[in-house]
């Protein structure tokens, strides 16, 4: 039997069985609720970015149950979540859909299966690192960092394009160029960092992530 055939057979075996579902339950935030979806599709119809998803939450849940591991964890769908919580409040089964989407994105990101260069994946990482650095978010460095994500040239172009907004905010005293040199932060930075590090260590240990 050829290798491809073995592969096909294996994936056939896993189909509509509990393997991937169990993995999700063990490792994804609120993942134990995936099996409770009753496939009504209200989430899909409630999502503001609905038309932009390849797979709606409804489909993602069914794909997990159908054992489609690669398709789910490699999808950029979860990163389309704006955290508007519409799906959560409308779900007749009270699935914490927003949290599951966040959890899936986090899991896919941590095990390296999330799509490379996905803009929200990049921005979210930048955001977290920015806040961890000082304990509070520095809006200027965050914004600039975001614009320069795709390289210097594209960054300068984007930043120039958004100049009028930046200037406006500056004039309205809502953006401080001095922030680039430091800005707000918590005083007990050492303690803050220790908490984040410890929490990450516990979570990684539990979920079997390698740092």
């Amino acid at each position, binding site marked *: 039997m050829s290798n491809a055939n073995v592969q096909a057979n294996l994936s056939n075996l896993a189909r509509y069985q509990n393997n991937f579902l169990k993995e999700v339950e063990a490792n994804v*935030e609120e993942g134990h609720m995936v099996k409770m979806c009753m496939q009504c599709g209200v989430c899909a119809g409630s999502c*503001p*970015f609905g038309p*932009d998803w390849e797979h709606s939450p409804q489909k993602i849940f069914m794909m997990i149950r159908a054992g489609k591991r690669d398709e789910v964890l490699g999808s950029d769908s979860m*990163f*389309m979540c*704006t*955290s*508007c*919580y*519409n799906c*959560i*409040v409308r779900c007749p089964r009270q699935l914490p859909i*927003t949290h599951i989407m*966040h*959890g899936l*994105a*986090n899991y896919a*990101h941590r095990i390296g299966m999330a799509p490379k260069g996905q*803009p*929200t994946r*990049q*921005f*979210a*990482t930048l*955001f*977290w*690192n920015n*806040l961890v650095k000082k304990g*509070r*978010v520095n*809006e200027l460095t965050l914004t600039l960092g*975001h614009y320069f994500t795709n390289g210097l040239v594209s960054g300068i172009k984007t930043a120039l394009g*958004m100049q*009028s*907004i930046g200037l*406006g*905010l500056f004039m*309205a*005293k*809502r*953006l*401080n160029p001095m*922030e680039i040199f430091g800005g*707000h932060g*918590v*005083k*007990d930075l*050492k*303690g*803050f960092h*220790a*908490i*984040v*590090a*410890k*929490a*990450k260590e*516990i*979570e990684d240990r539990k979920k079997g992530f390698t740092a």
Partner: protein
Amino acid sequence: MAKKEYAFYPGCSSQLKASASNYLVSTNAMCKALDVKLTEIPDWNCCGASVGYCEGGELPRIAINARNFAQAETHLPGQDIVATCAACWLGARESKERLDGSAQLMKETNEALAAAGLHYSGGANVRHMVEVLIEDFGYDGLKQPMKKSLEGIKFAGYVGCQTNRPFGIVGESFENPLYLDKMVETFGGEALTAYDQKVTCCGGALAFSEPEKSQKQIRDIVESAYDAGAEMIVTPCPLCQANVEVYQSEINKKQGTKFNMPVLYYSQLMTIAYGGSAKDAGLNGQLIRAEKLEKIAGK
């Protein structure tokens, strides 16, 4: 009326010279008029916001919120934690509820806090400023310090997402919350209850990473305000305010619209109604000037 005291969690965007600094300025003026004492949680940190999920994960996000709870518990015992930012409120309240619901999570969180010599024993009460206004004062109570009416201004009450879902204000519906309209009416303004995008998502943090998709949302939000006959949009959320105000010029440029709709915080309206100056209300912080409101302030 006895002075009310709260542990205040202003959040990153409200800081001096940050995007929602005018929210903080007007909140301070509003609280002064209502005889409310806000004490900042000492050395508070960021809530992680929603978008922190991707890199932050579950426990680190909860742990940093618990750090704020621990600080409040130690330094401001017995006071409710009050956030003005929708994301701060949501992040903090979500963390609180998860901790309330899981002894295991509580244990792990305290293990992390111990790294900085902190401990959280539970029982934090996390509230949004709007909850405080409606529940602790009531619409009638809010009316008492009123000096000027906002009569003649038509407001589209844009509630947005995170002050409305998943927690929301008790007694309000997720699909058509009315509290913002009621607040506008309390201060004499005209609330456009037919405004149909009041709970539409502005794109949130994805305004940065998915600008086109988000600007489509924002366009709907502003356009519908115009359709309803609004002169201003009022909102309780700093990210809503920023996204809806800041990107109007961008949308005008790209799509040829002529948006010029001021976007205000409820606290700015209230500051003016309570007789504060345009400066007290942070009106100088608007990118799109709220001239009609400035006029009332100047009277």
